[in-house]
C-alpha cells in the first residue's frame, strides 16, 4: 500500500463519521484540493532540492497510538526544566494529563484545537484556515483534510502571557510507522504579547511523517516570540508550514532550531499587512549522517515602512545536505522597506552539501534590500590564534563552531533555555 492509499483510507474514516462532524465540509474541501495538487515533486521549483519520493513507499498509520513512555521522554527534555504552560500532543492527539496550564488569567485561552472548535467557536471560525493556503499548497490541504489536533492559543487585547507556552509534540514510532497532522492556531490580539515554543521530539525506530501547519495572527501593536525546536530522532520526516500574518506596528521574533531529523522541510511565511512591522527571522540547522534539512522562508512586505531581518546559519556534517531558500518580496507601493537577509554555512565533511538560494523580488523603488550568502570553512587564522595560546585543535574547532551557532540560540529571549540549548548544540557538534 502506498502513502496515497494510506491517506485515502484515513480520509474515508472521517467520511464515515461525517454526520457527527460539523467540520467535515472543511476537510472534504481540502481533500479535494489535495487530490488535485498531490505531493510536490522536484519538478516544482520550490521543491527542487527536496525529494519526497522516499515517503511514498512507507506504510503509515494515522491512528493515535497511546505512548507508554511519553513521561520519561518529556522529563529528559530541556523544555521540562523551565517554568511554562505546557500542551502535550502525542502522535498528534492531545494528552491532557501531561499538559499543564499555569496561567492564572482565565481570559487567556491555552487549549487544544478540538475543544476550542466547540468552546470558542466564534474566534476559531474567524481565524481558522484564513492564513495558510490550501488551494495551492498540497501539503497544507492534506493537513487540513486529515488534521488530528493541535494547540489553540488566544491572547486577548492588552494581556501579557507571563510564562512561555510550550507546544510539545511527541512522535512515538516505537511500535509502528506514524503519520500525523498537527495543526496549531495562535491569535495575539491588540497590544498583547506572548512567547510560544513549538517543539518536536520522537521515540522509536519506525518511520514517522509529521505534516504540520501553523497559523499565526498578530494584531496591531502586539508582540510575539515564536521558537521552533526540531529534534526528532529515528527515521523522521517533517514538513512544517508556518504562516504568520502581521497587522500594523507588530513585532515578531521567530527562531527555528533544527538539530535533528531525517528530513525536515520548513516553510516559514511572513505577511506584513500593515505599516511599521518588524519581522525577525533566525535559524540554525545542524545536520549529520544522511539527514536533509530544507528551510524555505518568504517575507512579504505588502505595506510601506516595514523592517525585516533574517539570519540563517548552518553546519553540515557527514553525508548530510541542507537547503536554504529565502525570498523577500517587496510589493508595489511598499515604499521605505528595509529588508535584510543573510545565510551562512560551514561544510565540515567532503560529502556534505548545501544548496542556497537567497532571492529578492522587488516591485517598489524606495527600498533598501540586501542579501548575502556565504559558504566556507572555519577560519584558519582564528584557529591558529587559539592554538598558539595552547588550545588543542579539536577544542579550538568546537569553540569556533559553538560561537558560530550560539549567535542564533541567543536570539531566544528565555535565558534559562538558551543555556540549556547551547549545551545541546555543543553535544551535537
Amino acid at each position, binding site marked *: 500500500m502506498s502513502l496515497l492509499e494510506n491517506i485515502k483510507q484515513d480520509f474515508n474514516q472521517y467520511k464515515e463519521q461525517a454526520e457527527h462532524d460539523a467540520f467535515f465540509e472543511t476537510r472534504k474541501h481540502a481533500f479535494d484540493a489535495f487530490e488535485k495538487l498531490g505531493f510536490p515533486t522536484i519538478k516544482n*521549483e520550490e521543491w527542487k532540492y527536496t525529494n519526497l519520493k522516499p515517503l511514498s513507499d512507507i506504510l503509515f498509520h494515522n491512528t493515535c497510538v497511546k505512548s507508554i513512555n511519553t513521561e520519561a521522554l518529556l522529563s529528559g527534555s530541556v523544555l521540562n526544566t523551565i517554568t511554562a504552560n505546557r500542551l502535550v500532543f502525542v502522535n498528534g492527539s492531545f494528552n491532557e494529563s501531561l499538559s499543564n496550564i499555569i496561567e492564572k488569567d482565565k481570559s487567556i485561552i491555552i487549549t487544544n484545537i478540538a475543544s476550542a472548535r466547540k468552546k470558542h467557536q466564534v474566534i476559531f471560525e474567524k481565524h481558522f484556515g484564513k492564513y495558510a493556503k490550501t488551494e495551492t499548497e498540497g501539503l497544507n490541504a492534506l493537513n487540513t483534510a486529515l488534521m488530528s489536533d493541535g494547540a489553540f492559543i488566544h491572547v486577548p487585547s492588552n494581556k501579557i502571557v507571563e510564562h512561555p507556552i510550550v507546544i510539545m509534540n511527541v512522535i512515538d514510532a516505537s511500535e509502528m510507522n506514524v503519520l500525523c497532522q498537527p495543526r496549531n492556531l495562535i491569535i495575539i490580539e491588540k497590544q498583547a504579547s506572548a512567547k510560544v515554543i513549538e517543539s518536536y521530539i520522537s521515540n522509536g525506530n519506525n518511520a514517522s511523517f509529521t505534516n504540520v501547519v501553523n497559523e499565526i495572527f498578530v494584531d496591531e501593536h502586539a508582540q510575539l516570540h515564536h521558537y521552533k525546536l526540531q529534534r526528532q530522532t529515528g527515521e523522521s520526516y517533517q514538513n512544517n508550514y508556518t504562516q504568520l500574518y502581521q497587522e500594523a506596528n507588530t513585532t515578531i521574533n521567530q527562531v527555528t532550531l533544527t538539530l535533528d531529523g531525517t528530513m525536515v522541510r520548513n516553510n516559514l511565511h511572513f505577511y506584513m499587512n500593515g505599516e511599521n512591522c518588524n519581522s525577525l527571522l533566525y535559524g540554525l540547522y545542524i545536520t549529520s549522517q544522511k539527514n536533509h534539512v530544507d528551510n524555505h522562508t518568504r517575507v512579504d512586505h505588502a505595506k510601506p515602512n516595514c523592517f525585516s531581518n533574517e539570519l540563517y546559519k548552518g553546519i*553540515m556534517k557527514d553525508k548530510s545536505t541542507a537547503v536554504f531558500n529565502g525570498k523577500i518580496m517587496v510589493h*508595489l*507601493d511598499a*515604499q521605505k522597506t528595509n529588508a535584510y537577509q543573510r545565510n551562512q*554555512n560551514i*561544510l*565540515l*565533511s*567532503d*560529502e*556534505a*552539501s*548545501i*544548496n*542556497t*538560494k*537567497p*532571492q*529578492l*523580488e*522587488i*516591485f*517598489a*523603488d*524606495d*527600498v*533598501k*534590500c*540586501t*542579501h*548575502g*550568502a*556565504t*559558504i*566556507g*570553512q572555519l577560519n584558519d587564522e582564528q584557529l591558529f590564534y587559539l592554538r598558539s595560546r595552547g588550545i588543542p585543535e579539536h577544542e579550538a574547532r568546537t569553540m569556533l563552531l559553538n560561537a558560530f551557532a550560539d549567535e542564533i540560540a541567543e536570539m531566544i529571549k528565555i535565558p534559562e533555555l538558551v543555556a540549556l540549548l547551547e549545551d545541546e548544540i555543543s553535544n551535537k557538534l
Partner: protein
Amino acid sequence: MAEELDIIDQVTQQEYKYGFTTNIEMDTAPKGLSEDIVRFISAKKNEPEWMLEWRLKAYKHWLTMDEPEWQNFKYPKINYQDIIFYAAPKEKIKLNSLNEVDPELLKTFEKLGISLTEQKRLTGVAVDAVFDSVSIATTFKDQLKEKGVIFCSISEAMHEHPELVKKYMGSVVPTTDNYFAALNSAVFSDGSFVYIPKGVRCPMELSTYFRINAENTGQFERTLIIADDDSYVSYLEGCTAPMRDEHQLHAAIVELIAHDNAEIKYSTVQNWYPGDKEGKGGIYNFVTKRGMCAGVKSKISWTQVETGSAITWKYPSCILKGDYSVGEFFSVAVTNNRQVADTGTKMIHIGKNTRSRIVSKGISAGKSHNTYRGLVKVNKKAEKARNHTQCDSMLIGDRSGAHTFPYIEINNHTAQVEHEASTSKIGEDQIFYCNQRGIGTEEAIGLIVNGFCREVLNQLPMEFAVEAQKLLAVSLEGSVG
C-alpha cells in the same frame, strides 16, 4: 521639477535612433519550419553532408522538446511556422574588397556609426560584419593570416577547416542543451569562427556587428571561438536592429573553448530595438552563451552591456574544467519602459583550485523588470573552489521591478563562496549633492549610473566603453521624477 519632467518626456519618448530599413532584394526561404527548410538552408549554404546530418539531428530533438516556462516573465507564444528561417541579400558580394559592397549596405553601416572604411583606417579593428545572415565583408584578414589566426564566417570554416568545426561545434553547447539551442543548431544561418593557434596573442580586437534587417526573419547566429594553448584573444560583439512592429526572435549560440593557459575575453554591447513605450515590437533576445575552460590555468571573461531588446534572456556561463582555471562575468543590464531582462551566469566548478567572479549591475526604470539569475555550482571533486558574487540593482521609478535569484550548490567542503546583493534607488540626496555643486539633474543621474556601473564598464575595451557609456546615458538620463 518641471525641467525634470521635460527630461523624462524627452527620454521616454525618444524614438529608436537606429530604426530604418534597407531596401535590398532578399533571397528568402518560405515561412515556417520543417525538415525541408533545414535541408533548404543547408543546400543554400552549400554545406557538406555531415553538417546537414548534424542539423537534422538537432531538428529532430527540437521537435521532442517543450518551450521552457521557468523564466520570470511571460511572452506570447512564438509561432515557429510564421518565421522566415533564412534570408540572404541577393547580390553576391566578393569578400575581399569593400568597393564591391552594395552601396545601400554601406550606407546602413554608416547610419549605425560603424563605417567599415573608417574603422579600418582609424581603429585597427577587424570587423566581420554580418548583415542579416551572410557575412558581407571581412577586413584585416591578411594581417591576421600572417599570425595564423583564423577569423572567418562559420560557413567558410565548414569548408576550409572542417576538422576544427567538426571537433568543436556543439562541444560546449550540445544540440540537445535547451529548446532554443536545439532550434539554433537546426537552422543557424551563419556566424563567426575564430581559431587562435598555440602561443599567439591576437594582434587586434576582433569584432562583429550583428544586424537584423528583413522583416519577420529570425536571426540564428553561431559563434565559435577556440583559443589554443598559451593564446589570447579579445572579441567584441555589438548589435543594433531597425525598428519593427512584430516581435523578432533572436536565438544565437556562442561557444568558447580555452585550452591550457589561454585567455578569451568576450564583450557584448547589445542595443537592439526594445519595442515602443507600450511594449509593442522589439527583439526577443534568447541566447545561449557558454565557455569551456578546458585547459589548466585557462581563463574566460564575459562582459556584457545590455540596453536593448524587448526581452533579454541569457546566461553567459563558464565551465571551469581545467585546474586553476578562472571564469569571470561582468554585466550591466538596463531596462526601461516595458523591457524585460532575465540574465545572469552559471559558473560550474569542476577542476581543482578554480576561481570565478561575478559582478552584475541591474538598472530598471519605467515599467520594466530586471532579473538576475545565477548559478554557482561546485562539484564534489572541485577542491578549493573560490567564488565571489556581487549583484546590485538600482530602481528608477516606482513601477519598475528588480529581482535576484541566485542558486548556490556546493558539494565540496573546501569551497569558499560568497554572494552579496543589494537593491536601492537613486538617492535624492545624491542628486541634491550634485545639484548643489551646479551639476544639472540630467547630468547627475548620468554620473551616478556611470559610477554604479563603473566596475563593469572598466572591463570593456576602449572602443566599446565609449559606446556603452553613451548608451547608458541615452536610456536613463533624467528618468528620476
